């Protein structure tokens, strides 16, 4: 694409949504640009550019990161999960079902990042309290929903707890 010679590039191999990919990438390439422009995974969004809004949240080895400020070379040998890999075929992930059911989706621009952050939380803690969800999603902004339905959706998705 670019006529410019990049100062240096590096071969980067990683697994994304279960598939192995190997790309020759400029060392300064950002993970968000690689996902969106090289791999066509447009679910993660660019909004604040500075790791505040969470719209670009993807998981690297299961942990949420802001892909807008994450160097792509850092994912070499690691596992990247994006919203596109959340459903299994036509079967939605329970979080996706819950977001729809609870009305947690409006414009949808924050949704991919919200879902991935919430997934990281549920993987860590299957039945978080509302307070825990609030704290965990602090780094994901939403300007449409006012958050309440997002919080409800994540809490509702938590495994029913045994006993009280």
């Amino acid at each position: 694409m670019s006529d410019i010679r990049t100062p240096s590039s590096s071969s980067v191999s990683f697994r994304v949504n279960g598939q192995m990919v190997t790309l020759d990438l400029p060392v300064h390439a950002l993970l968000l640009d690689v996902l969106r422009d090289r791999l066509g995974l447009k679910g993660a969004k660019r909004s604040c550019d500075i790791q505040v809004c969470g719209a670009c949240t993807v998981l690297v080895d299961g942990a949420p990161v802001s892909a807008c400020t994450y160097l792509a070379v850092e994912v070499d040998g690691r596992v990247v999960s994006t919203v596109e890999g959340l459903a299994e075929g036509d079967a939605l992930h329970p979080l996706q079902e819950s977001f729809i059911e609870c009305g947690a989706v409006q414009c949808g621009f924050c949704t991919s990042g919200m879902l991935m952050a919430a997934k990281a939380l549920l993987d860590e803690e299957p039945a978080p309290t509302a307070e825990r969800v609030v704290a965990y999603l602090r780094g994901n902004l939403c300007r449409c929903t006012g958050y309440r339905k997002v919080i409800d959706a994540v809490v509702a998705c938590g495994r029913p707890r045994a006993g009280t």
Partner: protein
Amino acid sequence: MTPRERIVGTSVRRVDALEKVTGRARYVTDLDRPGMLHAKILRSPYAHARVVRIETATARALAGVRAVVTSADLGWCEPYFGPAYRDRPVLAIDVARHEGEPVAAVVADDESVARQALDLIEVEYEELAAVTTLEEALAPGAPLVHASKPLAGHFADLSSLRPKPGTNICHQFDFERGRGAAGFVDADVVVEDTYTFPRVQHYAMEPHAAIACWDDQDGLTVWASTQNPYSVRVELARIFRVDLSRIRIIVPLLGGGFGSKTYAKIEPLAGALARITGRPVRLALSADEAFRTVRRCDARVRVRLGFRRDGALVAAQCEAQWDVGAYADIGPRIIQKGTYTATGPYRVPHVLLHSDAVYTNTTPGGAFRGFGVPQIAWAVESLIDDAALRLGRDPVELRRQNLFAHGEEFARGETPIDGKFEESLARAAEAIRWSEAVLADRGRGIAMMMKASVAPTVSEAIVRLHADSSVTVLASTVEMGQGARTVLAQIAAEVLTVPVERVLVAMPDTAITPYDQTTSSSRSTTMMGRAVEEAAEDVRGQLIQIAAGRLHGEGVGLRLEDGAVVSGRGRVTFGELLETRFGMGGGELIGRGVVAPGRSQAPLGGSTPFWEMAVGAAEIAVDQETGAISVLEYVSVADVGRRINPLLCEGQDEGAVMQGLGHSLYEEMLYEHGQLLNGNLVDYRVPRTGDVPHLQCRFVENADGAGPFGAKGVGEGSLVPVSPAVGNALARLTGVRLRELPLTPERVWRALRARARTDQPTKDVT
């Protein structure tokens, strides 16, 4: 007796839910065109400066750069645009009028090259004296933001713009009722004060984006993140001097709007760059650039209210100055609409209102959820509480006494009040437990609002019934998160008795979907909803006519049921009826709906299609050490006539309340020496998950709205009462009245400390 609706009134799943939770939803920035180039904008570092010289040769020479464009390269088009005044240049012409104004643009093979090239452009500026506040702009002899009279825009209700020559005032609005200010002679108690409202950023999470592409027939297609494709079309047709029919605006999903994407913003530049390069050009702003593109108008509002001893509100006067920034955008209409309903939901016999729209050297002010109403309601609703205190009355009771009744006249020729304020107020008071004692360290406050929608106004729709009984709705309502496409699908499905899943609402495309004025002003459910209902009814009429012929001329008693026309004699499916009509398994029935109430004798030239009305009630606590306000509980009650989709209505109002909490507690764009200090999401603080109070959104539904099935608008109203409800709660809890938003800890702390000094001079205040 019509059978009860089956789809309308239920929370059917959003039609775009699946694509949005799977990452498949596409926004402008997700699109690609063959051969697409990327543009970046060089912006003015000064608030006000003459552009003396621009040196572009070095930037042009950079590999991968396809064009470097300044206003000198735009001689072939009409380089000014704007809905009220054509005062905004596509790129700065001779003068830059605010920090961040586009001065030059680079088009390159990719964004990173374009960004590098920006650094290679040399601009010589001669800094000019700037005005960045209302005070500076209105001072005698203030530097003028615009030296010459700008060209008029195209709106009928703005045909009588009244600038004040030789000043920065670009429009004045006056409204008088009864004896005006002379009505204060009837008042026993008068309250008066000045309130200010800050500059606020929308922060729609998707910044503005456009992809422009010219074809071989002099036609321009723009994929744009806009709330009103048809307004953008008008601007582009004029700028590029081509027929409206040759401008095609396609609108994918929007990542939020809130008013920031009304009227042309970056589409003119994208179109110009595509013309110059002969290639598709993508122009995607960053969030920081959105801060330099549009914001809410800040305002200084002086209000005087006169009450009789018995609590009757007899006179109101308001003088407001609104900062519309460097370019008027839709500011003149904002000040008209905001001022017009300054007296809120209250019956006031004598009224005198005046507003000025004032240019400053700051980011242009434009439409933002509430459209001028939040700025004035902040003042008026606070003063009503002050009056209650003076009159020894309960604030809820004082409000109740003065509320408009259902059907009452607001102004001559205007739509009568179409909802029940009293019911809303009672519901809100009950939900916040108004009559019960509050804990000693908590305070409760309440506030109300009323807002007119835009008028005159036009929405047109087409409904197509296909041979397999599926339906296409053609409507230019933009989906920006509110769920309009779902609501329109519900309306068509209800009328045609087909499952909502079988209705496809097409995305706006001015080459295909018919005219709609705008997706704003909470108007889509009412106006486009009616157009879709009418178009679906047109199809229903055609079905019944065909069925009557088939059922031996008996048109009476025929009705639609589950995708068929039924009568006492039997049932014929839509598919069979289309076969009858066309003599083959093809063809389609096309229905048309046009909602265009036209002009009226109402003061603003058109009668509002409906009144948006809401009440808010807050319970708060204040940290005496830090001054931080915690909003613990919030109740919003909106009179929406009827909810087409209850879950979507809740979503609208919950979002509106939280956005209102943003400007009430945290949000303000700060300038120093003309520089925006916090134009990014680190320094500009929007509400987060931890800021959500215990939040209840309730609805008054009397099916008395002007929209389909008794519905009317929702979505803006509930934002408006938030600030005064919180401010009133603060005043009732602490005795401190703040008149400046946002209610930051510092402001609250200083006020608490000042009060402690005056009230308890003997106590030691630390």
